[in-house]
């Protein structure tokens, strides 16, 4: 009962309190309506421009998803090579470390020029690079978690290298992969969105947020921000569900 109260009721109470403060500041005190619009104003705008917002959200969501998928595939492949060949691990480690500290969205203008400013490719590549790092780091760690007793068993069964990888090494790494994908999903959405602030085609959530914020249509800008939150949340929940499905029978380490 206490855990239910703590995990469900408490966040709801906090949410309602925040909503109350928000309403108080906007509808009662009328504090700076151009900066903080009331919830009702935002909802009204979302209702009016719902179709366009959804269209733009789908563009950004697709960019994030394509980047996430590409970054995940690449991350798993490179991690598998690094786990298999120590030399490869040594060669890639500095590159990965460098890539991890580069502010990736800063590359957007360059990538837009390289890949053409009228396509979404630059944004997808940015989301892909952002997703690659956590997937690679987690999968590489996961591929090294096989237990000695399991390795002994597979040797006793005279299992080949490929069989051991498919039936032992890879399943052992699965929870690590999904942790990586869960972290990468948020990064991919953020990167895809922020990349839109640096130019390129107007489709997507980024451009309207910038232009409506500048032109004083704050309520609509907030509506777009809400859509961005919804995309991030959806991806996060899906990946969390996948992670739960894979790890539910595993003892926690």
């Amino acid at each position, binding site marked *: 009962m206490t855990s239910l109260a703590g995990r469900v009721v408490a966040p709801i109470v906090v949410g309602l309190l925040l909503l109350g403060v928000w309403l108080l500041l906007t509808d009662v005190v009328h504090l700076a309506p151009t900066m903080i619009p009331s919830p009702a104003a935002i909802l009204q705008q979302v209702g009016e421009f719902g179709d366009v917002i959804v269209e733009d959200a789908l563009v950004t969501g697709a960019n994030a998803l394509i980047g996430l998928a590409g970054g995940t595939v690449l991350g798993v492949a490179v991690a598998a090579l690094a786990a298999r060949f120590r030399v490869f691990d040594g060669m890639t480690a500095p590159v990965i470390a460098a890539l991890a500290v580069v502010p990736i969205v800063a590359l957007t203008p360059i990538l837009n020029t390289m890949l053409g400013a009228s396509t979404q490719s630059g944004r997808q590549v940015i989301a892909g690079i952002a997703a690659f790092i956590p997937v690679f780091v987690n999968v590489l760690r996961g591929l090294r978690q096989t*237990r000695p*007793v*399991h390795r*002994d*068993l597979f*040797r*006793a*069964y*005279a*299992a080949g290298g490929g*069989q051991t990888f498919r*039936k*032992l090494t890879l*399943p052992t790494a*699965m929870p690590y992969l999904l942790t990586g994908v869960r972290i990468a999903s948020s990064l991919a959405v953020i990167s895809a969105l922020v990349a839109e602030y640096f130019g390129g085609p107007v489709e997507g959530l980024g451009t309207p947020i910038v232009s409506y914020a500048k032109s004083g249509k704050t309520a609509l800008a907030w509506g777009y921000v809400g859509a961005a939150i919804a995309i991030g949340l959806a991806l996060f929940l899906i990946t969390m569900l996948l992670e739960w499905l*894979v790890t539910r*029978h*595993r*003892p926690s380490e």
Partner: protein
Amino acid sequence: MTIPATPGAGVAVKAAGVSKTFAAKSGQVHALDAIDLEVAAGEFVSLIGPSGCGKSTLMRLIADLDQPSGGRLEVFGKSASQARLDQDYGIAFQQAGLLPWRTVAANIALPLELHVPSKAERASRVAELAAMVGLSDFTGHFPDQLSGGMQQRVAIARALAEGPRLLLMDEPFGALDEMTRERMQTELARISTETGAAVVFVTHSIPEAVYLSDRVVVMSPRPGRITEVIDVPFGSSREESLRESPEFFAKVTAVREALHGTPVTRADER
């Protein structure tokens, strides 16, 4: 000292002058020295001794999980490595070592998946094995839903999956409570009789070794050597009542004296 196996049925394991040294920081560690041992087909042999006597190492050499530093080791007349490749033995460890993402049935099926292409054949074999270890009602469960004793039964079923003529077991009941342990011993005695497989059984427990074995091999540490071999002529049917019989206690005493009679290591040798 050469220990002759029961004549007739053939030889499962034959070790002649087998030694094993490990490289350690403080120099070389003699884990095993001059091991001569024969295990006949269908025979149940326990290896018993204090920690560090090399009993697990000897089992790992037979399983070809490690290689001997000297001497000759044959399993069914072939090299240990060939016997492993031919899947002549099944193996179980103190840790059940089940794959947590697989159900009981899929865990038992694991070695079959690697060597038996027919899916139907695998399924019927898994059902048979699950029944043998009394887990027919639990084939859909995952390891985290099973008790320690049940997990170990799955591990035993898995070890028996390919009908091996030799079963290698490294303290398989070491992590179980006493009551579960005795029940598992009774079941193992039945299973080993049913399958007719030879068993090399590593244990710390004197009553366990006496209850299960045809012969108990007593080992001493530093370097690991065989100090005595004790015959346990109770035949193949091991009833629960055996545990309370005077003959049983006499053998337990004999093994205990053999263990304690080994030359005590001087403190300055450690």
